[in-house]
Structures are given as structure tokens and as C-alpha cells.
């Protein structure tokens, strides 16, 4: 009996009925539901920005929130697909976060252009980044814990997308909580750190999701 035959015999004797992983749509819905609930609870505890009625008539603010929300949804779906070795044979959908990301950057670009005269900069700066990072911790932990139960063959990308999804939750919370109209501040301290988080996600994916 050669090595392969021996291994086949060992593995097959170990085979018991297996519960299949949930469909990635179902998996992402679980993540999205939990993260949305977390966002609502956090907003209920910290409070919605007092000027939300005025803000939600600003077209570029609405576009920013809508594209950020889309980014959160699509990254969660993509992370769920990336948890499967074959991306559940939905390769295009796994790389779909590119679309909301481009729309999001466009919305920010137009919001910046329409910020004329520029709104005054708030006094705080890095506190915003820290608040977002703290808020994203719980969704990030949960997503990574869940991802580890599957078998990603794109573990770096899965880590990065999962972290971006969690970051979107934190960024959404802060935009809906903080009274701040300075798009320069928002870009610098809310959204640029997203790039760093994406890179950290690549590294974390390699460390935590490799199997």
C-alpha cells in the first residue's frame, strides 16, 4: 500500500456526517444583521447627531452615507464569499467591493468640491480615527472569528475586506453621531485611515486566516 492509498484509508475511516457551511449569502446576512444591530445600539447609546434633519437634505451627505452603507454591505458579502476556497464560484461578486468603493470616492470628491466656502475645521483630529477604530473592534473580531471556521484560499484579501467592512460600520457610526461639516477633516481623519486598515487587514489575514 503506497502513501496516498494509506492516507485515503486513514481519512475515509475518519469521515463522519458533516454539516455543510451556510451559503455565503446567508453568512453575510448574519454578519450584516449583527453589525447593523450593533450600529443601531451604539447610535442609541451615543446619540444621533442633533442636526441630522438638516444633514439629510444635503445631497452629497446623503450620497456619502449611501455609498458608505453600500460599501459595508458589499464588503460583508465579499468577505463571506472569500471564506470559501472556490469563492463559492461567484468570482465577480467576490471582487464587487470595487464598485461601491469607486462610487464612495466619487461622492467624497463631489462633496469636497461643493464645500465652498469650506466649513470650519473642528478642533479635534486623531480622536475621530481612534473612535472609529474602537467602534470597529467588535464587528472585526466577530467576522475574523467566523472566517477562521472556513477555508479561505485568498486569506490576505479576506482579512482586508473583513476589516474594511468593520471599519465602514465605525465610520458610519461617527458620521451619524458627530456634528461636523468639514469634508477636509472627514477625509483626513475618517476615511484616509481606511487605507491603512486595509493594509493591516492583509497582514492580519495572513496571520489569522491561513490554514
Amino acid at each position: 500500500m503506497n502513501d496516498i492509498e494509506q492516507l485515503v484509508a486513514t481519512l475515509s475511516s475518519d469521515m463522519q456526517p458533516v454539516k455543510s457551511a451556510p451559503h455565503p449569502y446567508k453568512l453575510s446576512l448574519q454578519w450584516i444583521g449583527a453589525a447593523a444591530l450593533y450600529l443601531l445600539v451604539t447610535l442609541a447609546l451615543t446619540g444621533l447627531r442633533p442636526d441630522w434633519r438638516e444633514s439629510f437634505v444635503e445631497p452629497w451627505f446623503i450620497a456619502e452615507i449611501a455609498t458608505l452603507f453600500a460599501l459595508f454591505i458589499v464588503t460583508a458579502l465579499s468577505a463571506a464569499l472569500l471564506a470559501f476556497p472556490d469563492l463559492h464560484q461567484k468570482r465577480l461578486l467576490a471582487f464587487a467591493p470595487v464598485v461601491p468603493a469607486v462610487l464612495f470616492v466619487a461622492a467624497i470628491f463631489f462633496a469636497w468640491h461643493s464645500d465652498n466656502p469650506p466649513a470650519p475645521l473642528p478642533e479635534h483630529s486623531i480622536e475621530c480615527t481612534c473612535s472609529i477604530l474602537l467602534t470597529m473592534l467588535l464587528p472585526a473580531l466577530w467576522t475574523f472569528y467566523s472566517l477562521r471556521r472556513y477555508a479561505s484560499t485568498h486569506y490576505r484579501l479576506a482579512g482586508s475586506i473583513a476589516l474594511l467592512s468593520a471599519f465602514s460600520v465605525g465610520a458610519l457610526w461617527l458620521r451619524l453621531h458627530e456634528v461636523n461639516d468639514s469634508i477636509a477633516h472627514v477625509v483626513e481623519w475618517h476615511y484616509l485611515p481606511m487605507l491603512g486598515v486595509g493594509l493591516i487587514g492583509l497582514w492580519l489575514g495572513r496571520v489569522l486566516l491561513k490554514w
Partner: protein
Amino acid sequence: MSEQNDNLEGLMRQSLAGDQRAYAALLTETARLLKPFLSRRLRFSNEVDDLLQEILLSIHKARHTYDGKRPYKPWVYAIAKFRLLDHLRAHYADHLRHAGDYDELEEILPDDVTETALSYESISAEVEKLPAKQATILRLMHQDGYTAKEVAAKIGMNESAVKVAAHRAYKILRERLER
């Protein structure tokens, strides 16, 4: 072809339900399917066998990510490609790390090695005179192309012990060839 695909998916569905015979048949068929795929991409047959075993283990580990409702082959090839890339990455990283070992071998040989009485045969003869373990290590590393790590796994030593033994062997060879 389609019948074979249906068979594989059917076998996987039966396997997931706990049918051990179906699972054995599926793994055997998968190994048969993957062997030419790996052979085309790797140089040594023992490398192919080692990697094939690793892939079968990965399939076993990831079996819960297949639901039997989508084609089996893309799923299994995704795992095979993943393990192959991992293997190649580790292999080349190891080669780069140990590039120094080969430099060392070049240094110990006289400059005019190809123009003098020193030939492949004479070096091989000297290698054969080394203690059995050192000779095996040099043969595996320089004739069969294994890395120190792979040699270690093959002969049941740890990697640093293999490097030390190779280093000692180079020293002995140098002394003998310089005589």
C-alpha cells in the same frame, strides 16, 4: 466527462452524509485527477506525492465548505492551486535563504575546478567516502535538488542539524579536494 463530474459530486454528497466508502473512492479519484496537474508543474515525483498528500489533507479539512450543489472540480482545483502556490512560495523562499550554502560550496572548490583533474565523478567519489548521513544529505541537496528543510523532513532530522551536517561535509570535502 459530465458523467464523471456527476459522479464526483454524487460521491461528495454521499461522503458528506458519512459514507466512508464513497469518500475513499472520491479521494482516490481526486488524487488520480490531480497527479498530472501537479506533475506538469513540479520537477520531482516525490515532491508531487508529498504535495498530493497535503492537498488531500486540505480537502479533508475544508470538506464542510462544499455543499454538493455546485461543481466539484473548481472547488478541488482551487484548493490544489492554493497548496501548490504555498508550496512553491515556501520552496523558493527556502532556496533564497540557503543561497549562502551554495555560495559556500563554490568558495571551497578551487577556481580552476573544471580545468583540472577535479571532475563530477571525482567529487561524487569523495562524497561517497563521507559518513553515510553526510553523503545522503549532500546527494539529496545537490543531486536531487531538495532544500535543507525538505531533506530534514525526509530523513527525520531537524533543519539546523541538516545544515550543520552539510557544513561539516563541505569542510571535509574541501580538505580532501585541496590535497
